[in-house]
């Protein structure tokens, strides 16, 4: 078997990555604080569920983590933030759940009632992006009021763009949005429509970002919203809408605008490990790795397309994590 492993390793062509990994492993040992536990001897399974917005970031982190720890196997499933809490994390099936909005009180209760204690770790900031078709040259700037008109509970199938603004064409608005299990849905409804879960029924809900892009791409009067990452990696497919909360100043979704808090639809992205499972070294180490990498411009911004944590935010999050690990180990 040893010959198999060595040949597979060489196939993975990651001599460079292994070098970087070695450095990271050293770093992990020094600031991980969990002395005696070197980088290489972690093993076992990690099951991550939750937000499809955080999914690409979690996969990228898991991928790098596994290259450092060959014996750890990570499975990442995207279920939507709420779907993950409800169906996988709170019942105790998954170790970690990602979310594109803070955990709700009802979910916290649900988890605690089955002995699961979520620990909130902020891992990035997203600029939730509203897109329209590339041919759409009228609705390139939208206020929160206009968005609420389009996506609010009263918006029906007969709504036309002219209903939003009389200067716009008298064509039906076709909406492509997030499924109700999605944290994106919760954040969008709360921020734009004023109340969580309040949303028009006349839209195509999906957890697959590609369906939203394709829907808008194929429809000159379509509109959709999703996490910035998908738009960031596919900017030719659709046009991003500049948004404004009050109507004074409009901001396009971008990493700079989200980082500077100018962009009104910027939102934090989280990962929630179960505190009781932080006693397992591999899970604690994975969370440390995730938080550590949350400041990396290369991973978070360049590869995935979110705003990295600032150093001070990351060390704050790391403190939360470390105290949770200590609590888990002592209790």
């Amino acid at each position, binding site marked *: *078997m040893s*010959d*198999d492993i060595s*040949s*597979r390793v*060489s*196939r*993975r*062509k990651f001599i460079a990555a292994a070098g970087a990994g070695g450095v990271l492993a050293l770093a992990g040992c020094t600031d991980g604080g969990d002395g005696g536990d070197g980088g290489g001897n972690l093993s076992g*399974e990690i*099951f991550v*569920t939750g937000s499809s917005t955080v*999914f*690409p970031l979690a*996969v*990228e982190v*898991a*991928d790098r983590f*596994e290259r450092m720890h060959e014996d750890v*196997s*990570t*499975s*990442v*499933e*995207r*279920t939507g933030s709420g779907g993950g809490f409800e169906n*996988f994390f709170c019942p105790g*099936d*998954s170790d970690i759940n990602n979310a594109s909005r803070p955990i709700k009180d009802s979910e916290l209760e649900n988890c605690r009632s089955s002995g699961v204690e979520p620990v909130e770790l902020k891992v990035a900031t997203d600029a939730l992006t509203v897109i329209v078709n590339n041919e759409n040259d009228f609705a390139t700037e939208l206020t929160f009021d206009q968005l609420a008109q389009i996506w609010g509970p009263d918006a029906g199938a007969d709504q036309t763009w002219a209903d939003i603004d009389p200067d716009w064409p008298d064509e039906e608005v076709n909406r492509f949005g997030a499924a109700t299990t999605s944290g994106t849905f919760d954040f969008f409804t709360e921020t734009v429509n004023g109340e969580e879960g309040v949303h028009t029924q006349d839209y195509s809900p999906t957890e*697959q*970002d*590609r369906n939203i*892009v394709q829907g808008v791409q194929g429809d000159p009067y379509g509109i959709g919203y999703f996490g910035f*990452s*998908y*738009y*960031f*990696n*596919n900017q030719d497919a659709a046009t991003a809408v500049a948004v404004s909360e009050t109507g004074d100043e409009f901001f396009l979704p971008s990493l700079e605008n989200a980082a500077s808090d100018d962009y009104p639809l910027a939102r934090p992205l989280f990962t929630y490990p179960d505190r009781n499972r932080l006693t397992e070294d591999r899970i604690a180490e994975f969370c440390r790795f995730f938080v550590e990498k949350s400041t990396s411009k290369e991973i978070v911004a360049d*590869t*995935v397309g979110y705003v990295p944590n600032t150093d001070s935010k990351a060390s704050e999050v790391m403190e939360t994590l470390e105290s949770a690990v200590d609590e888990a180990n002592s209790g």
Partner: protein
Amino acid sequence: MTTDTNTDTDTVESVDPGLGRVSRLRGAVFRYVTFVASLVGVASLGVLLAYVFWDALGMDSAQPGWYAGFFLLVVAPFVGFVLRARTDAVAGEVALELFATVAGGIQGGFALVVVLDVIAGVDVWLSYFLTTIGPAVAVYLYGRLNRAASWTGLGILATGLLGPVAGTLLIGRIDVVVSGVGAPGIYLLTVTLPAALGVGLLVDRNEDLGDGRWATLALFALGVAGVLAADAVPGVSRSVWQLFVASFAAPTGYVVARNLADQERWSGLAGPGALVVGAGVLLLVDGPLGLVGPSPWFDWQFLTSPPSLTDPSTAGVYAPIVGSVFVIVLVAVFTLFLGVGAALYLEEYAGSSGLRGAVARLVRINISNLAGVPSVVYGLLGLAVFARLIGTGIGTVLTAALTLSLLILPIVIISAREAIAAVPDSQRRASYGMGATRWQTVRNVVLPRSLPGIMTGTILALGRAIGETAPLLMIGVPAFRRDEPTGLFTRTGALPRQVFTWADNPNPEFQYGVLAAGVVTLLVVLLTMNSIAILIRNKYERGDV
């Protein structure tokens, strides 16, 4: 209506002009409508396949000159052969046999590597080989040689029950042997050698082929000497080489030799031969002639690398393939036992009257209905019953295997019942007439006669199972997993699930390159399984084994 019924339709009008002409327009229109209807399906499937293969093989980047060479050297000879095979049935059959053997051998090799080397590991394999498989085969062979020994059947059963227990105890105690002989050596002795002996026996049976001992020796020598060649190929370890000699080289060599020995079948070798030679020549000349060929996504690197969502050039399907093979091997075991068992009971044992007959009727009707239940429903059932209630775990190998087994079980049972019902009753009565018991009749008459039908149905059903995505989504098979599964209770990736994940990737290189390569992998697996099923059916329909 006084028309004479004997009158030819052409002369109807002359007999009774009062009826006027019978319009044939509707008939003609109907005929062409049916023709178009049959074309729509085939044509759209063809477009889809061409589209996917075009992307997967990266044909965009090839130069016109390369295409000219490709058509001249590969496509033209192949089309010529297909045209010839239309009139020469033997040629088509030989070509199908070769294709099925080669593709099946490669996939069988993958399955063997996954099951023995990746999942079980060489120490576990050796333990069970020494305690269960080896003794059982030895007892069986002794029974074949010495027909008077009536204890062999029970002996095999006892080995099958006690062997695994002994084998489990043996694991860990034979480390010395394992490290002394080495994994490739153990595979050489336990897999390559038996395969070589088996081919030798087959060669001996065939009068045209000469001495089987030479075939055995040649294959064994290939296993030993080929190690040097295997070392030079990246991604092929010595263990993998041994397993591929057994699963690929042995059957392919035998099939080629047998077809070569029979002059009537030579014409069939021309097609595959022309393909291999044409592709080989093209590979040799395109470099010197400066022809730029396609840059395929679907290549060796793709098959042997772990999946990725960010780097299309290194993304692969190794772990999902291992996961799918693992699951499908389990599904095959479950459905063969349960499906054939149920079909035998329903056809041979359950009477048609009384309480048992009523129960059997109820079961039959329900099985027929279950075959039409959407696969999503089976996914929900798998999540609720297997993953949650029984506790086999979310997205694990066992949950996936059990769910997919349930999904195709009705199809397997129905096709196995058809095959069993097709065995002529006269043969059963003849068996009873000679004093055979019911068990002996089932064992010696019904099962051997219906086995090809059962195998064909099962393989086609397995082909459906391997491509199913909806149930996998329901039972929580993860969207991304870099590692292959290591046991029944670890989570696993799967080919169709991986394709589904890639389909949502924003990067166009994933959407049009990697995704297409994943689809082609699935299609190649499916087409191979189907051609094996057709091959088995053809062979047994004509009665030659």
